């Protein structure tokens, strides 16, 4: 019996002496769902989007909708800026589950290493949030734009990034893990999509923006910004962005409009893939980019006879040529900025480590010496309901 008493006593002690270590009620937190980093003068200005403040009229049970609050603070370091926010916010900030980090153009140009260091070390932060750049506007403002289709701005941005990555060639989602591994490894550089604000910020952050059926202000995803080491060096245009994503294999679905005779044909590919391999012959580095996929015609204008297999072949040829051109443009941009955003260096490192280690120092500078061999093999499957354009059928 004494034994039993001892066991029970120690169990009770075991339970209670833990003292509820790490105990925190969920509503004692301000849950941060988006973070923006700006620069103001020499200081960082960090803004957080807090999304769990209940609406003032939450007496009805349907109170799961939220009103968002953006707080910002300034400081020489990210952490001191966050401490400034702590003075404003009624409860402790919780960074465990924020979904988007917006970095402003200025911060990116100065180098993002210092800015992201805090998030690498923060213990309970998940590392799978998306990273986007803000172009032509303050990063803080992108967190303020209310949209009617999502309950809060950060969700709008993440959903947008997620779906467009699948459906559009020019957008490739970058999450924090990708960003870290790219920064930390040699022979590959960053490229991150930007986000722009269309319209007036003041209007966008007010409630009217949600209530109107045509929101005056909205955010829109844009082209890639390319980095050298941790600094933003240039912006790619639309075509170059597509080219970059094609080489990196980040494009699965994309469309191309091809001019043909006096009209045009739009083709859409849903299973596009790239196969990049590197080889070294007589100390001469060579990159083979093999592109393949299937596409179908989704829009036709003009007098084009799609029943003719020769026409189809010709369109196919043109499409492949166009893809090649995109890739070449992207290569030119990389060479111009002397930054290996495609990660060729990494591939050489994996296959020919000795060679790469020798060339490592000047890898980016010698990017133009790489021999690039592009082969594009897009198959056009003409599975459309109507063989020719409607105009022609009317005749």
């Amino acid at each position, binding site marked *: 019996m004494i034994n039993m008493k001892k066991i029970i006593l120690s169990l009770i002690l075991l339970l209670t002496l833990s003292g509820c270590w790490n105990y925190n009620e*969920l509503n004692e937190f301000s*849950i941060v*769902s988006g973070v923006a980093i700006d620069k103001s003068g020499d200081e960082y200005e960090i803004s957080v989007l807090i999304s769990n403040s209940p609406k003032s009229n939450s007496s009805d*049970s349907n109170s799961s909708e*939220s009103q968002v609050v953006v707080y910002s603070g300034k400081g020489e370091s990210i952490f001191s800026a966050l401490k400034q926010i702590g003075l404003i916010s009624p409860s402790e900030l919780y960074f465990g589950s924020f979904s988007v980090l917006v970095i402003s153009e200025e911060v990116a140009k100065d180098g993002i290493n210092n800015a992201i260091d805090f998030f690498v070390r923060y213990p309970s932060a998940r590392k799978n949030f998306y990273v986007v750049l803000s172009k032509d506007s303050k990063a803080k403002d992108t967190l303020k734009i209310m949209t009617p289709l999502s309950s809060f701005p950060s969700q709008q941005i993440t959903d947008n990034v997620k779906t467009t990555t699948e459906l559009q060639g020019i957008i490739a989602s970058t999450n924090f893990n990708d960003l870290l591994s790219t920064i930390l490894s040699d022979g590959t550089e960053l490229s991150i999509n930007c986000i722009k604000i269309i319209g007036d910020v003041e209007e966008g952050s007010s409630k009217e923006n949600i209530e109107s059926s045509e929101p005056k202000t909205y955010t829109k995803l844009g082209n890639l910004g390319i980095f050298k080491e941790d600094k933003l060096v240039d912006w790619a245009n639309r075509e170059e962005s597509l080219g970059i994503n094609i080489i990196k294999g980040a494009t699965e679905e994309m469309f191309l409009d091809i001019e043909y005779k006096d009209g045009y044909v739009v083709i859409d590919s849903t299973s596009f893939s790239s196969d990049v391999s590197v080889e070294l012959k007589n100390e001469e580095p060579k990159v083979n980019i093999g592109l393949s996929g299937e596409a179908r015609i989704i829009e036709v204008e003009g007098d084009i006879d799609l029943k003719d297999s020769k026409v189809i072949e010709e369109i196919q040829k043109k499409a492949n040529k166009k893809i090649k051109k995109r890739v070449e443009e992207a290569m030119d941009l990389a060479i111009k900025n002397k930054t290996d955003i495609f990660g060729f260096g990494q591939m050489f490192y994996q296959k020919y480590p000795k060679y790469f280690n020798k060339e490592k120092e000047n890898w980016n500078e010698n990017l133009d010496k790489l021999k690039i061999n592009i082969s594009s093999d897009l198959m056009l499957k003409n599975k459309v309901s109507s063989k020719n354009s409607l105009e022609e059928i009317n005749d």
Partner: protein
Amino acid sequence: MNLQNSIKKNFEMLNKLNGKSSDIVTRIIEKNSKKIGYIYLESVSSDDKISDFLNKAVINMDRKKPFDSFYDLIKNSIFNSKVKSIDTFEDMFYHLSSGFTVILIDKCDKAIVVETRQKLDRGVTESTSETITRGPKDSFTENHNMNLGLIRKRIKDSNLWYEEVIVGKRSKSKVAVAYIKDIVPNYKVKKIIDELKKIDIDAVIDTGYIRELLEKDQKSVFPKVISTERPDFASTSLLDGKIVILVENSPFVIILPAVLTDFFHSPEDNYQKPFNVSFSRILRAICFFLALLTPALYISLMTFNHEIIPDQLLISLAIQREGVPFPTAIEVLLFVLTFEVLREADIHSPSFSGSAMNVVGALILGDAAVAAGIVSPIVIIIIAATSISELVFYDVDIIDAIREWRLLFILAATFMGLIGFVAMFIIFIAKLSSLECLGTPYLTPFSPLKLRSLKNSIVRFSRKDLKNRPEYLTKNLKRMDDKYEKNNS
């Protein structure tokens, strides 16, 4: 105490022993200058039967028949199939209480008892505690012989043995151990009978007494025997190689040994299509864990391990909890207890107050509590899911066991979050593994793994694939001939 050879003296002795109980009826008839006395208890005996069989027989008795003594003459003239001789007062009381009539003859120290029992039970009725949609609807009753008969008529095999032990110093209840001789290993039956014989108690009113007294070695809230009131289920269990214990005056029988997965089964499982049965059983297994773990998991996620909750859900949960004055654990405990109170009230209240309870339960405790900001809606959902999950089990014992372990899980989660939760789960599994009944570990057929028995545990294969009995119950495995399929196709 032996009977004496004078009717008067015996009557006096009886009155002395029984304090002149009001239901004792005594009468003396004189026949052929011999005195015959009889005694019965009018509370348990049927007057009609006594008049029909006894009085008539004694009065019309033919003296000329060649019998050695008057005693033998009477004994052989009575038209009744149950006639016995007794010679002690203890025996006399036992038979009187069982509805027998005792016939005493002058100058003879033996008595004759004749069955004149009155029907003191309801007939065979539909089972109320284990309702099913398909299958036999009869259930055991309080009549011991009828219960034995309900099994016997289902298994017309000479190997179906009933062994009877009288338990209880005062109640002298018949406890029958039913088993199929060539399926059940002998040592199991012997062990049970020995245990039953060792029981020293004044009365056994229901099977619950026996169940509790047999389960003395290991303390556990988990039931190690199945209680049922369905004779069809008892019969299938017998055929599987289990042992059934029937207690006089109890409509519930116990089936042993039981393993955990037995409680995921329903009596109906034998009459439904195997695929549907498997589906229901998997559902019940899921419900088992839902009922056990959900509140604890909720508490540990809400108060310790927020990082596991997906972003959107986290925000939604945080908003729902806004303004709730209690810590999450108190909030959950409050509503777990509320539900238990409701259930307790519902079980024991007559049906006419049921609707009032529904209103209180559903409207006031659910809606109003949320509107008043005492609990968050998600807690109501959690408790509702938990409570509904536990109600899919038809055995009350397993529901109670889940309920108690759930509180332990909540406690562990409250103090230590997921770590406590996992620690408690390990303790839970260890506890389950340590249980055994008649040498069968409680987690069979999973641990120890019995591959062939898995065919009828969480899933049920078709009857043609279940040619063997569970190997953890018996060595006589063949239920069907292996060639059965071939011969018929």
